[in-house]
């Protein structure tokens, strides 16, 4: 069983959803982001999404755009991101790592080489924002050969018929983009999430995580209660950005503030589930 499947199974047995925090690799530098990554599981991360910086993140809002720019400035490369995951994996064999990014850096690295090296580094799943199932044939076989899940995005605009098509190309879990918009902007209501989840569950047995627009502990608890997991990205990156000094360097506040926020989110997700259960 893959790390992703095992983790969701364990959480289901515990009767709660997953907290899935996001960090941008090399933001604001390799050392800080690796330290953050390593400390995330203890702070309550059940799975972790690691963003691969790209120069033109056209589905992302300003907060993730700035994080990507900081990462690139700090020298992020595909190879560098994979080395960072490998360093994490030496110490943590359990926590699933999902790489999230855009297709072009992966193409430049080579589809098959990327999948093989990512799996070797300890990556469990891939989310490529601009690779819809229509174009995914270039990556599906190498990912499968390497044992990587391709996590599919599903949006409020995805009609039922298309939902079945998209999900036929999904593995690992399903990422529900809860708003029509870019990351870190609006937030969907609990009622909207409930009806969307009913629609998705009718089409798949895979676990479902909700992302885009989840900022507060309450929102995370609601999403993780309705679905199987909640992704929090922009809110954490905004906190990280606040702690940087005027030259954009990490300070002694950077790790504690971000990790503290993850702890609060994790506590809410865990407590929320008890109430629901």
């Amino acid at each position, binding site marked *: 069983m893959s790390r992703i499947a095992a983790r969701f199974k364990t959480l289901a047995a515990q009767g709660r959803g997953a907290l899935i925090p996001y960090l941008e690799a090399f933001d604001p530098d390799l050392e800080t982001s690796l330290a953050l990554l390593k400390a995330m599981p203890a702070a309550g991360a059940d799975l972790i999404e690691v963003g691969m910086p*790209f120069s033109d993140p056209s589905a992302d809002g300003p907060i993730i755009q700035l994080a990507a720019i900081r990462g690139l400035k700090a020298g992020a490369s595909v190879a560098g991101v994979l080395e960072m995951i490998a360093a994490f994996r030496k110490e943590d064999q359990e926590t699933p790592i999902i790489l999230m990014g855009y297709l072009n850096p992966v193409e430049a690295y080579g589809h098959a080489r990327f999948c093989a090296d990512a799996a070797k580094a300890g990556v469990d799943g891939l989310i490529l924002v601009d690779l819809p199932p229509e174009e995914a044939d270039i990556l599906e076989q190498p990912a499968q050969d390497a044992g990587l899940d391709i996590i599919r995005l599903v949006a409020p605009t995805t009609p039922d018929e298309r939902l079945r098509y998209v999900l036929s190309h999904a593995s690992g879990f399903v990422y529900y983009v809860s708003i029509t918009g870019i990351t870190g902007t609006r937030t969907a209501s609990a009622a909207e999430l409930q009806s969307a989840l009913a629609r998705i569950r009718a089409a798949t047995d895979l676990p479902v995580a909700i992302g885009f627009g989840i900022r507060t502990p309450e929102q995370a608890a609601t999403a993780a209660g309705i679905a199987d997991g909640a992704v929090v990205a922009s809110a954490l990156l905004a906190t990280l950005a606040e702690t940087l000094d005027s030259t954009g360097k990490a300070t002694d506040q950077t790790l504690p503030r971000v990790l503290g926020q993850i702890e609060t989110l994790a506590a809410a997700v865990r407590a929320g589930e008890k109430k629901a259960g």
Partner: protein
Amino acid sequence: MADQAERHSTQAAHPNSLRHGPDARGHFGGLYGGRFVAETLMPLLLELNEAYEAAKADPAFHKELAFYLRDYVGRPSPLWFARRMTEELGGAKLYMKREELNHTGSHKLNNVMGQILLARRMGRTRIVAETGAGQHGVATATVCALFGMKCVVYMGATDVERQKPNVFRMRLLGAEVVPVTSGAGTLKDAMNEAMRDWVANVADTYFLVGTVAGPHPYPAMVRDFQSVIGEETREQMLAQEGRLPDVIVAAIGGGSNAMGIFHPFLDDASVRLIGVEAAGCGLDSGRTAASIERGRPGVLHGNRTYLLQNADGQIEEAHSISAGLDYPGVGPEHSWLSDIGRAEYVGATDDEALQAFQLCTRTEGIIPALESAHAIAHAAKIAPTLPKETLLVINISGRGDKDIFTVAEHLGVKL
């Protein structure tokens, strides 16, 4: 009769035609193009494709478009024999396809007119567009004024600065112009921001793409709407010279004016097609916009195509004196035409474009857009090397009034 047969061959669907692309997935030659977008946009692209296919098959749509092209855009545009430039250069016989005479001053309105009619058919009420030089933005703002639709134009902050007349025009026309400060503040960044707007406002918004790039069906649809340039050129040249042109030269940023004039000639092997990219400070200067000559295939803004990028797949900033060519990518059909050798792609530098700008103005009394000046620059380079009977068409894609400030600055003149 020969004319009739020639004309007929442009619509011919012979099995080896180069004019069949793209395939159902939007791929040209199996590799370029496609639909590389977030899932939120996929259902919209599928809907757009269906709506466009339905419009294409509907004679009423073509009738409506023809009406607006004739009575509002001012088509057909003339094919002008450039006598003095021909004499001065002493070689090929130079013709100019006068797209700068269209309403709003460029070829952009051909495409915009087609897409706005489509947006209306689809019941959309809000239009977003990206623009570089502002020509596409002005054209879009114009049709939005014509049909009373809400218009938001994203424009890089750098371009807002260097294309002030067009910014003012757009605002007069009722459009909201949003300066984009991310990246270098040019067309690439405007495109990112327009896509973000579209993703956030899918219900009522139509994304009116200005060039033959972006996710399928945009490259094919914009090409189809721009093909009127090549179709007219073909008829006009047959009428004036009794035969097809030998060489066609057009400037390439995204490549819509070039695709429009090339496409009806793709199956006429005798017609040399030359796309002129903006070499900026020189092809090997590191400050260029020549994506085909100095880039390699990759994925950006919804399509796979030649891109200026580093070894790690990060997109590089383009550079050109011309805001309309200042883009690190190119339409995917051009990438394919380059790979199969059907069209040639060359570069013209900022300086060469400036010289051509003056040459055209001085000899023909036509002030060309700096974009078009790149095509003129290359035509001026090769014309003296070609026999006098060679028929060479330059696509004058836009007029240069918008560029006089930039040109004056480079010539050291204070306005």
